[in-house]
């Protein structure tokens, strides 16, 4: 097949990584003082910023509130400078609404919403630079922001993408690999229990390859969870040193 080779014969990808290697994940919590919780996360070149407000009284129509749990309201948007060409509509388009809905479903599975009836938790995520894995970077950043806000969660939610080239699963796809036309599976996982919060796949692959692909994605998510765990623990230690 002509075009860019996603996996070379020696087993290297376009950016020099191995097939199962993740991109470098760096994150910081508590970046904003105004919000209840905030976090900034970089996964390779993808940069995401997440901000959490709540739980607070339901804004807008009172009918939106649920009598036994909190409503989670997510908004996903991309900065106009986040892609190679200037993005015309940062939010409100179909892709953003779908992403917002996915984020909402993911966090409804993890946050203990039954503790806050008739209230609302807002999660706002903004992509500052987009290089593949937008949804997964958002989920990871939002997890850190929710932990920073002190909202109780069942477990972290870690997300990662996986692809399939030449019978080899690739973990953590970058933009070139995603748009190459091959499969791209996004998985959001609760690492300790192994429960899946959301799984989404584009393009088609043979059914026999699905298990390997899911396995690769789950291993990648567990790798991300170790990094996030380290970030949370370090932040806790820093905060305790300051206030002790």
């Amino acid at each position, binding site marked *: 097949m002509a075009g860019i080779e996603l996996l070379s014969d020696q087993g290297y990808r376009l950016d020099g990584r191995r097939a199962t290697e993740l991109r470098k994940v760096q994150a910081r919590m508590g970046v904003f003082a105004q919000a209840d919780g905030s976090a900034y996360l970089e996964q390779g070149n993808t940069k995401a910023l997440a901000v959490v407000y709540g739980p607070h*009284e339901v804004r807008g129509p009172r009918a939106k509130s649920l009598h036994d749990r909190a409503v989670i309201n997510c908004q996903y948007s991309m900065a106009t400078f986040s892609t190679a060409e200037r993005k015309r509509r940062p939010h409100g388009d179909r892709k953003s609404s779908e992403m917002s809905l996915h984020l909402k479903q993911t966090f409804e599975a993890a946050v203990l919403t039954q503790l806050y009836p008739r209230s609302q938790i807002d999660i706002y995520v903004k992509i500052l630079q987009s290089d593949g894995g937008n949804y997964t970077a958002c989920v990871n950043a939002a997890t850190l922001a929710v932990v920073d806000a*002190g909202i*109780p*969660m069942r477990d*972290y939610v870690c997300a990662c993408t996986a692809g399939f080239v030449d019978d080899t699963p690739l973990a953590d796809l970058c933009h070139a690999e995603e748009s190459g036309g091959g499969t791209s599976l996004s998985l959001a996982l609760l690492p*300790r229990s192994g429960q899946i919060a959301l799984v989404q796949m584009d393009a088609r692959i043979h059914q026999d390859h699905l298990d390997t692909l899911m396995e690769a994605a789950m291993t990648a998510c567990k790798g991300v969870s170790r990094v996030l765990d380290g970030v949370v623990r370090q932040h806790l230690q820093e905060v305790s040193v300051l206030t002790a």
Partner: protein
Amino acid sequence: MAPSLRTLYVRPNSQSDKSSIPSQQPIGKHSSLLENMSPMKLCVPGERLCGVEDCIPGTGTYLRHGHIFASLAGYVLRKNEGEELPVISVVKETEAQLLPDVGAIVTCKVTSINPRFAKVHILYVGSTPLKDRFRGTIRREDVRATEKDKVETYKSFRPGDIVLAKVISLGDVQSNYLLTTAENELGVVVAHSEAGVQMVPISWCEMQCPRTHAKEFRKVARVQPEYLQA
């Protein structure tokens, strides 16, 4: 300043199939707890703390398959409450948002009155201030316990009064939190007269302005003697 009112209340356990939510106990200031504890263990959400036979789950934890897991990122605190098992909970340096619960004593500010009810903004739950104001309603029949139908809201509250009330209901789709002042210790705590001066209570239904000596009607709260400054 009067010592802070510590209110401990327990939310009835809502039973679900796999995981049960532990009772909520708001902890006021935990710096005093932290100083006489040995270096405490950090924990993150999802971390298994212990089995259900060793401890009782407290705030910041949840129960699943017979094990207690943390749901917050913070320090693990094990306290002996006097029952057989210690209570294990996770505390954070900064307080998380607290919600008014049924039976909680809240401090609110009256925003508008109406012959049928008074609308308030809830400012404090117990002694913890809320970051965001919640809206509440005190209906005419919940103002006092006796002679409920003869109540006039104009003679019980005025806009701008600070009122101590108790939450009776979280409200349904149409209404906000429903509050009541139908007890001796509930009612108006701080009120300003028409001259703008803070009034002094003289009976359960009247307050007097110290400057103009005019009396105004309010449903006054009888503050407990231990909270009054001598």
